[in-house]
């Protein structure tokens, strides 16, 4: 089976993640969509690794996972502290810098 299909699936999942970031207003759901985009990229990297016959792509995917884990920790801490001060997890409510 041609590995190109995995690339198409990866592109579709990445686009769905982008769509979620554009459409949703709940900060946690936006964050989940970002995780989906990272996962889609990982799938593409693993597929590239298979196409090229080297393991470098898999090592890249491994580093993406590590960075994603760190990003989730910091991002969720930010969401919790924003929720604590503004009592809302909506990204529309965090608009103090706008005015």
């Amino acid at each position: 089976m041609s590995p190109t299909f995995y690339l198409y699936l990866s592109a579709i999942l990445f686009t769905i993640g982008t769509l979620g970031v554009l459409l949703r207003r709940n900060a946690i759901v936006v964050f989940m969509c970002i995780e989906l985009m990272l996962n889609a990229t990982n799938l593409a990297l693993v597929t590239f690794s298979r196409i090229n016959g080297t393991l470098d792509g898999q090592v890249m995917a491994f580093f993406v996972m590590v960075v994603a884990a760190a990003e989730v920790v910091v991002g969720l801490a930010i969401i919790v502290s924003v929720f604590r001060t503004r009592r809302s997890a909506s990204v529309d409510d965090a608009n103090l810098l706008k005015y």
Partner: protein
Amino acid sequence: MPTAILASGLNASGPETAVFWILAPIAVIFALGMVFSRHTVHAALMLGGVMLILAVFYAAQDAPFLAFVQVIVYTGAVMMLFLFVLMLVGVDTKDSLVETLRGQRFAGVIAAVGFLLLLFTGIVNAGIHGSKGLHAVNYADNQPARGVQNAGGNVYQIAKLLFDRYVFAFEATSALLITAALGAMVLAHRQRHTPRLTQRELMQQRFKFGTHPTPLPGPGVYARHNAVDTPALLPDGSPSPLSVPASIELASQKQGREPRPAELGSAAAAHHPSSGKGQAE
């Protein structure tokens, strides 16, 4: 090695194609469901499903190590963190469906479709035909060298790359993880503005302002009713409203379930026939 068996079993073209065409549509449906579900918990569960399916795809593509890391790190740690924060922030915070920017949804969908077309064009233009496969690389030096069993394999080869060519990135990763842990602690830490009250001060406050200095009575526990929304009975047989927490009382009223004083009265009579009757009369 079960992972090798799993990977090699899926690598035969037929089963892999079947697995892909069964799981890929499910992954897309889950991803769409995540974007369009109103409940945040549903979205989190669907994202977990997508991550598990991606782990299967990694296993099918000669990446058993990443498949297991995906399950452990993403569905294990990251999704649990998400659910934890969901519970902390409030599960029932729903998105408002009002558009704050006019036409944002339509523009977003158009942009997403355009982006997808762009990506597809790129993949088609890349002209990828076939793949070299990783089996040869994964089992490059598969001799049990110096008494080490299963010396080759995916994990061994990734470790060789990670601690050799990418060792600097690996070390930088450790700095990143420590910084992230520190950052999370700093962000989630709450500064205490008032000094912590001692037990003595708490006691004095309770007697100064409080109308009920003693602890409130606990909820009723009877032979047939063992729930926190059942009020306790006072010595004269009447239910005590203080024994039910206010929030639970509100919730049970919302569900249309009133505390049943009549039932409670009969229960009390059954339990304490002498005291109940004597006090009532």
